[in-house]
């Protein structure tokens, strides 16, 4: 059986995920996305993974959500509230969502995962640090290079070439 914390967290996560997509203003939408990501961090805490939860909070809620907020503030005001979408496409999307939920849900409930439970102690987070510095250290270095190159790429993409000495050319 699920406990009340789990129920509250799932309502928060799913509800704010729907709100992030459906709220009219993009700014409130990105705040709702922040709530979704914090809800997922709460699930990580329930799963005895405090290290991943803190990483999620600092990377997703701390940096990605703020980055999205800044990008939203860079676009024109009427685009933030703009909601052009096809009615038929929308109903088809809702149908696809329900079919996916019910389909994958019944498959999972029917599978053998239902009886899977554990009484063993949680994984120690010191083990994760050890893994990172021993077995996964080449992967860690590659990940650092990917992060650095993606940030350089993002900066190169977003750079304006028409700005010379603070004056716009257009």
């Amino acid at each position, binding site marked *: 059986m699920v406990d009340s914390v789990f129920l509250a967290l799932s309502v928060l996560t799913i509800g704010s995920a729907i709100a992030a997509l459906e709220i009219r203003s993009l700014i409130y939408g*990105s705040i709702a996305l922040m709530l979704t990501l914090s809800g*997922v961090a709460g699930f990580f805490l329930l799963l005895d993974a405090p290290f991943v939860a803190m*990483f999620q909070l600092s990377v997703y809620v701390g940096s990605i959500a703020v980055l999205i907020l800044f990008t939203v503030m860079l676009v024109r005001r009427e685009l933030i509230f703009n909601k052009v979408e096809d009615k038929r496409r929308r109903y088809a999307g809702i149908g696809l969502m329900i079919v996916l939920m019910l389909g994958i849900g019944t498959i999972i409930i029917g599978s053998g995962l239902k009886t899977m439970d554990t009484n063993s102690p949680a*994984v120690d987070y010191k083990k994760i640090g050890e893994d990172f510095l021993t077995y996964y250290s080449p992967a860690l270095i590659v990940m650092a290079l990917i992060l650095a190159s993606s940030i350089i790429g993002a900066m190169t*993409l977003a750079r304006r070439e028409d700005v010379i000495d603070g004056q716009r050319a257009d």
Partner: protein
Amino acid sequence: MANALIDFILVSVALLAIGIYGMAVKRNAIRMLFGIEMIVNSANLNLVAFSRYIPNSQGQTFALFSIAIAAAEVAVGLALVIVAYRMYRNIDIADFRSLKG
């Protein structure tokens, strides 16, 4: 434990379905990024849940890698949105049909 593995997986399925709905229906580029974020988060939730119930630390390690890669992906995605906005003065993906420079 109070919660079984299947509860976490069902929440993850719901998040995945909502993310796919956002990707399929929304025409706003930033809202499509929201959908991508939800899909990535449901995958991470699955990884951590299985790593708790097997139990094995590899799932958490992979979740950490996945979060870091998702951060890089969002940075590049938002830069692309900014470039497209500068080019078309719009963030509607129906306007991004021509990919000329």
